[in-house]
């Protein structure tokens, strides 16, 4: 019995070690000022920092990684979240959207934040600073609405 445990244990350790050689590419490209939401709209600093801390890790090409991102399989887990997040919405490509889609993105951003579905729970567990207060949410929604109306007037 104890031999089996030993073998399984060693097997797992070996697997873990091998896993370290398979680290996904980092999601950290340079900001494209022609396409990035923050660069294009230059929101007030408190809004910008909210977007950066609460959204940009998974919804942009500039993830600010925690130290544990280097450890597989955690790195795979993070990477899948980032890829999914970006597929759904990528603030780094905001400028490539047409007017209606930009408005849609802003409205949607406000809605998911207001509903509390974003940022997701698992992210908040490890990112206390990404928790949004009701005041934060209102401020964000006021800004997205303002920005959306600006686009409508373009």
């Amino acid at each position, binding site marked *: 019995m104890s031999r089996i445990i030993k073998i399984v244990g060693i097997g797992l350790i070996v697997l873990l070690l091998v896993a370290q050689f398979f680290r996904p590419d980092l999601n950290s490209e340079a900001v494209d000022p022609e396409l990035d939401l923050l660069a294009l709209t230059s929101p007030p600093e408190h809004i910008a920092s909210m977007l950066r801390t609460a959204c940009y890790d998974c919804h942009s090409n500039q993830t600010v990684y925690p130290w544990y991102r280097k450890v597989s399989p955690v790195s795979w887990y993070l990477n899948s979240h980032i890829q999914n997040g970006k597929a759904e919405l990528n603030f780094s490509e905001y400028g490539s959207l047409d007017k*209606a*889609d930009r*408005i*849609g993105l*802003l*409205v*949607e951003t406000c809605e998911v934040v207001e509903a509390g579905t974003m940022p997701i729970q698992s992210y908040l567990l490890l990112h206390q600073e990404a928790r949004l207060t009701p005041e934060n949410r209102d401020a964000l929604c006021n800004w997205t609405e303002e920005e959306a*109306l600006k*686009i*409508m007037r373009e």
Partner: protein
Amino acid sequence: MKKQIVLLVALGILFLAFQSFSPDTPPEKEFPEEISILLKTSCYDCHYTGATAEKALKAANFEEWEGYRLTKKVALLGEIGKVVEEGKMPPEKYLEHKPENKLSEKQVKLLLEWTEQEAEKLMQGN
């Protein structure tokens, strides 16, 4: 007997009077008729007050269309176009029960043209 006649006449008058107070334009009036029909058939089962699909109603409730703010309308129009074009709506599960409500290619095209025009109109009108 006389009383009853008076009552009937009074009711008749009331009834006639009410005719001039037709309720505010029903929401579908904002949509062209052919679109309205499509929406009713393929969307309203879940996206209209009275539906039980809470999530669907929250995402879009056509009964409340007129009350939606401009930006929300434009956002929804874009979303409608997208989900219909990608065949995500009406969802498969729903179509299993109501295959007759599937949108034909022509209907999808019609909806797409409408969502784009309508969004454009709203944006210009602002």
